[in-house]
């Protein structure tokens, strides 16, 4: 049953996870574990990214040419696969960010408390 719930959440996050990853990589190349930790920390532990959605997303973004990947040695001396934002990845991030802003604004407008009540 646990499996089922996680799948549901991936579906909900499908669109935004890509944007979150791209956003996290803005500040420089990073490996998978660090990307997951980065999103969790910046969301103040509200968003927990499972490996099961992270890695498929990373590989998908790489396939689409928004990310590059290379093996590097981490700050702690371990070999890890680092993902880096490509130029088209940056453009994609700007696009999605803009779309997201408009989406959130629209939702906020709909959900604001009705005046006079």
């Amino acid at each position, binding site marked *: 049953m646990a499996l089922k719930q996680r799948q549901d959440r991936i579906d909900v996050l499908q669109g935004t996870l890509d944007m979150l990853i791209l956003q996290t990589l803005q500040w420089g190349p990073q490996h998978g574990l660090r990307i997951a930790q980065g999103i969790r920390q910046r969301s103040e532990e509200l968003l927990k990214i499972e490996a*099961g959605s992270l890695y*498929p997303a990373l590989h998908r973004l790489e396939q689409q040419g928004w990310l590059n990947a290379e093996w590097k040695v981490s700050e*702690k001396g371990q070999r890890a696969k680092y993902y880096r934002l490509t130029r088209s990845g940056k453009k994609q991030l700007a696009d999605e960010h803009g779309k997201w802003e408009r989406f959130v604004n629209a939702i906020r407008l709909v959900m604001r408390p009705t005046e006079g009540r």
Partner: protein
Amino acid sequence: MLVRWRRHEQDLERELAAHVAMDTQERIEAGDPPETARQTAMRDFGNLARVTEDTRAAWGWTGVEQCAQDLRYAARQLARSPGFAGVVITTLALGIGATTAVFSVLQAVLLAPLPYEQPGRLVRLYQQEPGNPSTRHYLTGVHFAFVRDQATSFETVAALANYSEKGRDLVTNGQGLRLRVLNVTSDYFHTLRSSPERGPGFDRGDESGARRVVLAGALWRTQFGGDPTVVGRTIQLSGESHEIAGVAREGFEDPIAGRFDAWLPYAVARDTNEENNSLTVIARLRAGITLEQARAELATLSRVMKERFPSARRSAVDLAPLHEDLVAPARGPLHLLFIAVALVLLVACVNVANLLLARASGRVHEFATRSALGAGTRRLCRQLLVESALLASLGGLLGLGITRLGVVVLRDLGGEAVPRLDEVGFNPIVLSFAVAITTITAVACGVAPALRFARIAPIDALRLHSRSATGTRGQGRLRSALAAAQLALALTLVAGAGVLLASFYRLQRVDLGFRVDRVLTFDVNLPSARYDADRRAAFQEELPRRLRTIPGVTAAGGISFLPTTGDYHGWNAAILSGPRAGGAVETKDGFNIQQRTISGDIFAALEIPVLAGRTFDAREDGAAPRAIVSAGFARVAFPGVPLSDVVGQRIRAGGRVLEIIGVVGDVTLDVHVPPALVVYHAHRQFADNRNWSLAHVVAADVPPERIASSVRAEIAAMDPELIVHRVASMSEVVGRGTRRERFALVLMGAFACVSWVLAALGLYGVLAYAVRQRTQEIGIRMALGATAAHVRLTILRQAAVVVGTGLVVGIGGAFLLGRWLTSLTFGVSPSDARILLLAAGMLTATALAAAWLPARRASRVAPRIAIQERC
């Protein structure tokens, strides 16, 4: 590709391992003990296999890889249970092979266009009463010439005289060879767009009886060594010189009459007998002219024709597309067989689906485990589908072998019953069909088990006891439904075969009006060059006399066409005396007074009773032409006159005034229709009319094959150059008339038997399985006092539901099938209740037998063992 794949694979493995390793490291640095750190990191990461698989899916090419994996796995699974795989593959191979074989016949005969250029523009012309296709008849030479000259709808019109088979003897290097020849008019080859490869062919000038010949490609190669200078040379055919006018294209065949060795010009200019409907006429529509336009023109021409020729008073000329005309008689049987074989395939699919389902039940644990280890539902379904696809493909491959065999059998059985059988073979269309039905079969067989497992929750399957987990009610119902479907299909086929069998039996019992047993028939043709009318007359009387001296022979005689071989020489007959003097003998179709020319003791040889008067003998010299008529003719021409007084009456037929000297029993021309009216002429008085090639009949009190060599010796003694051909027993000749029915019956019977056996096996399988599942329950019941009879009844009741449903649906199916049966039945209704009941009874009996074994096993369950046998 594969190398790159491996690298990607390793890369991903390392990437994910690094994730876990780094996480563990960080947790240790944060103060966790190493073991817990690793465990937490692993738990956090989730199902490694699942993550790997999902990530790989992002690459976009896992489908192929997974299929390859599934395929490998499926192959291993099958190799592990060769018995199961063998049964399934054989069942499918039979179904697919038989269906493809029947389809290849259907395709070649009904669907493939005729092998001539622009075949859609070829039509056949008929003479018939306006708007009454049942009176369709050949054209006379006179009417053919009229239509050819007047009609503008056609590019060319040609006639062929395939009405009666003709032959010529070719003697090369002292070796005699009987050639099958066809007389055709000059535009014949051009109409079929198959002008001779060499030489000019025929022209209009040849139509007044020129001795020219076009050789078939094969004959030219084998008898003339493929010599290109052969055109223009003169050869001897039956002792007459013929100039070679051309060599036909290799493989060229007549669309209607098939393969010939040579073509001769038809002397249409000399065919002035307006009563002699004997020409098959084909034509090629002019470009842009529709069938309807051509038909309208023919209707207009028919009116002119009626005014000009009194003989055409009642007839009009109509046309039919040539392809349609050729294949129409085969359409019914072939459609029926295709439906039947498709039903067999369906039964085979159901059987395999049931087997797969049963097997899959045994694999619930395997699937639950795989699911728990991270295999998705879709993945599991695909696994099952890949397995059934593998089975179906292997079945299909083996099926192609069976198709090859099947085509040979079909050709053999079809013989003259189905036209165009020579064209049957493997081609891209047949191959695509085989692939398509294999695919459909794979899906049809695999989908039921796949659907079942899509809904199994692994935890339930693992928790429950294996046996109860496999015995879900839904699945039992599905399998029972499948078994019922099999029974229904089998009943449909068995009932259909029953109708054909009953109908065939009726056909066999038709009173033919003559003797069939121990009668030998053969043809011998007298070359006109050496035999003039007098010599022919003498020979045809001498031959029966000599044959009569062979030990064992009781009577012998000759006749221009044997009974049951169809209608020939349907001339008009005028009545000159008696109550209807001055009238004409009219039958429904106006053409049907059959004329037969006979010699020897033909009535004695065929045991046709002489009802009044006498038969021909030495009194029939040249002077006064005399006739013998059939009883049917006597009744129509001389109504109310006692048969003994019919003797002595006069009629006119074949251009002669005839005195009737005898009345004989009716014989049938075609077993399907009532006997026709016949006028018999004495060959010795009629030999000058034409070179009648008589079929000879020898009745014996020993099996006919035993006298065949003596017959040949006797003829060789009379004239060593004569060629005896078409030697056959009378029962073979009669059998040819029912070949179409026999073709359908044999195949339908085979299909019915196969589906019957499969259905019985299917029912047995379902019940045996149910009993095995319920062993424990039955044990408890018996421990609590249920009797053996009671237990048996429980199982039989389960069977009764399946059988009952199957029978009801099957009877419906039999009614539906009846539509396609009607064209093949004779004296039996396709929905004859007795046959349906009998078929249902037979299936019920089989079903009972199939149910009895499991029921008996259930009733013999020893309670203690059954309860102990928990695991």
